[in-house]
C-alpha cells in the first residue's frame, strides 16, 4: 500500500474514532456546563443503549427499529438517572455528585453483569456483509463512513439547536449565570432534563457506533469511552460544547496517529499515551483549548 493510501486510511480511522469521542463528550459537557456535575455514568448509557439495541434486534425487529428504539431507551435512561440519582442531590457539593456518579457506575455495571452475564456478546448490527471497499487502493470501512457522516450531521443539528432554539439559548444562559436564569423565568428542571436527554441520546448513538466498530458488547464497555470523553473534555475545555467536539477529534487523531507512527511494540500503550496527554494538558493548559472560566460551585 502506498504511503498516501495508508495515510488516508488512518485519517478516516481517526475521524471516525474522534466522531464517537465527540458524541460522548458533548453529553458530558452539556450536563457539566449546567450542573457542574461530571457524570461518569455517562458511559454506561452507551452500554444500556447497545444492549437494548441488541435485545430488540434479537427479538426479531428490523435493524433500524432496534437502533431507533435502543437509542431512545438510552435517552430515557438518562432522564431516569437524573431524576433518581442526581436531582435529590441538587445543591450539594460537587464532590458529592461526582462520587455519586461513581456509585451509579458501579450500580449499572454490576446490574448489567447480573442481568446479561459477564461475557461479551457479538454485536452484529451495522456489520455490513462487505465491511470495506477501496478507492484508489485505499481500504475504507463502511462503519467509518457511516460514523463520520452520521456524526457530522448530528454536530450540525446540535450547533443549530444550541444557537437558535429557545432551549438551546436557555442552556447557555444557565451555564452563564444560574441566578439570572432563575430570575428571567427559566424553568431549570426542564433545561437539566433536556441536557440529560440529548446527551443520553448521543451516548446511545455513540454506543451503537462504538459497538459496531468493536463487533461486540459487554457490561463494562462504557468505562473506557467515558474516561476518554473525560480526557477529550479536558482537552477542549470542560463544559464547552464546541470544546467537547474539538477535544473529541483531537483525541481521536492523537490516538490513531500515535499508533500509526510508532513502532508496533508500542501499540499496547495506546491508552497510556492518552493519559500522558491528559497529564500534559492539565499541566500546561488546565482550562483546555476553549475553556476560559474557572470551575466554580454552582446550583
Amino acid at each position: 500500500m502506498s504511503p498516501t493510501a495508508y495515510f488516508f486510511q488512518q485519517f478516516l480511522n481517526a475521524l471516525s474514532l474522534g466522531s464517537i469521542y465527540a458524541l460522548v463528550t458533548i453529553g458530558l459537557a452539556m450536563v457539566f456546563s449546567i450542573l457542574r456535575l461530571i457524570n461518569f455514568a455517562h458511559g454506561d448509557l452507551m452500554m444500556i443503549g447497545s444492549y437494548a439495541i441488541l435485545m430488540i434486534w434479537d427479538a426479531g425487529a428490523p435493524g433500524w427499529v432496534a437502533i431507533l428504539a435502543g437509542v431512545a431507551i438510552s435517552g430515557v435512561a438518562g432522564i431516569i438517572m437524573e431524576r433518581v440519582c442526581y436531582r435529590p442531590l441538587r445543591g450539594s457539593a460537587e464532590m458529592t455528585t461526582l462520587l455519586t456518579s461513581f456509585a451509579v457506575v458501579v450500580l449499572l455495571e454490576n446490574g448489567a453483569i447480573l442481568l446479561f452475564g459477564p461475557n461479551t456478546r457479538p454485536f452484529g448490527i451495522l456489520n455490513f456483509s462487505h465491511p470495506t471497499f477501496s478507492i484508489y487502493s485505499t481500504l475504507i470501512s463502511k462503519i467509518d463512513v457511516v460514523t463520520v457522516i452520521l456524526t457530522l450531521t448530528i454536530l450540525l443539528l446540535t450547533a443549530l439547536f444550541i444557537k437558535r432554539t429557545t432551549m438551546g439559548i436557555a442552556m447557555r444562559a444557565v451555564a452563564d449565570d444560574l441566578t439570572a436564569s432563575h430570575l428571567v423565568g427559566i424553568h431549570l428542571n426542564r433545561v437539566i432534563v433536556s441536557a440529560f436527554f440529548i446527551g443520553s441520546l448521543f451516548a446511545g448513538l455513540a454506543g451503537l457506533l462504538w459497538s459496531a466498530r468493536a463487533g461486540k458488547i459487554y457490561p463494562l464497555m462504557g468505562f473506557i469511552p467515558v474516561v476518554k470523553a473525560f480526557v477529550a473534555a479536558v482537552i477542549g475545555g470542560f463544559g464547552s460544547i464546541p470544546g467537547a467536539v474539538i477535544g473529541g477529534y483531537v483525541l481521536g487523531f492523537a490516538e490513531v496517529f500515535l499508533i500509526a507512527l510508532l513502532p508496533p511494540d508500542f501499540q499496547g500503550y495506546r491508552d497510556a499515551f492518552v493519559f500522558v496527554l491528559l497529564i500534559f494538558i492539565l499541566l500546561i493548559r488546565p482550562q483546555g483549548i476553549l475553556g476560559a472560566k474557572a470551575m466554580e460551585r454552582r446550583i
Partner: protein
Amino acid sequence: MLQVTGLEVFYGNIQALHGVSFRVAAGETVTIIGSNGAGKSTTLMAIAGLLKPRKGQIKYCGRQVEKLSAYQTVRLGISLCPEGRRIFASLSVHENLTMGAVQRRDRKAVRADIDWVLSLFPDLKSRLEQSGGTLSGGQQQMLAIGRALMSRPKLLILDEPSLGLAPVLVNQIFNVIAALKNENTTVLLVEQNARRALEIADRGYVIETGRITLEGPSAALKNNERVKNAYLGG
C-alpha cells in the same frame, strides 16, 4: 398589588430580615432605601422567589407567593432586575432579550417588545449581535432592565439600577424609570441613590438592619431629618 407581611429570611443561622412589612399598590412607584447590608436585596430576592422566607407572607394580586420558585413568580408577572446586572455575558444582546421573554409564546409580540426595549435604550440597537460581556457597564445595566421588561411584568423590581454608573447614565436610567411610571408600570425600586429614588417614587420605606423603620410619601421622607442625615448627605 403586593403586600409583604412580617417577612423573616435567614442565611443559615443568620437572620437577615426581622419581620419586614410593606405594600405596593398597582400603578405606584415605591422605593426602599437603606444602607449596605440592611436587607434590601434580600427582601427583593424573597419576593422574586430566589429565597424562601422562614416566616411571613408575600401576597401578590391576591395570591400567596412566598413558597413559589422564581420561574413561577415570573409567570405571575413579577420581574426582578438584579443588583450587579447579571446579564448573560456570553449571550448576544438579542439572546439576552429573548431570554427575558423565555416563558412567552407570543412570538410576534415578543419581537415587537424587543423593538420597544430598543426604543427605550437606543444604545443597544447597534449592538444586538454583540455578546453581553463586551458591553460597557451602562449598556449592561440598560440590557438588564430591558431583559427584565421583556417578560412584560406587572410588577417591575429594580435592585440598584444606578449603582456604579456615570451621572449621564444615571439620568438616562431614571428617565426610563419615569417613562415606565408614566405607562402605569408598577415599580419597586431599591437604590443607594436615595435622593433620586425619592424624587421619582410616590412612597418610600427606610430599611435598617432587617427592619422597616420609617415609611411615608416621598416628599415627607425627603424632609425627614433622620433620612436627610443618614441617606441624603445632610
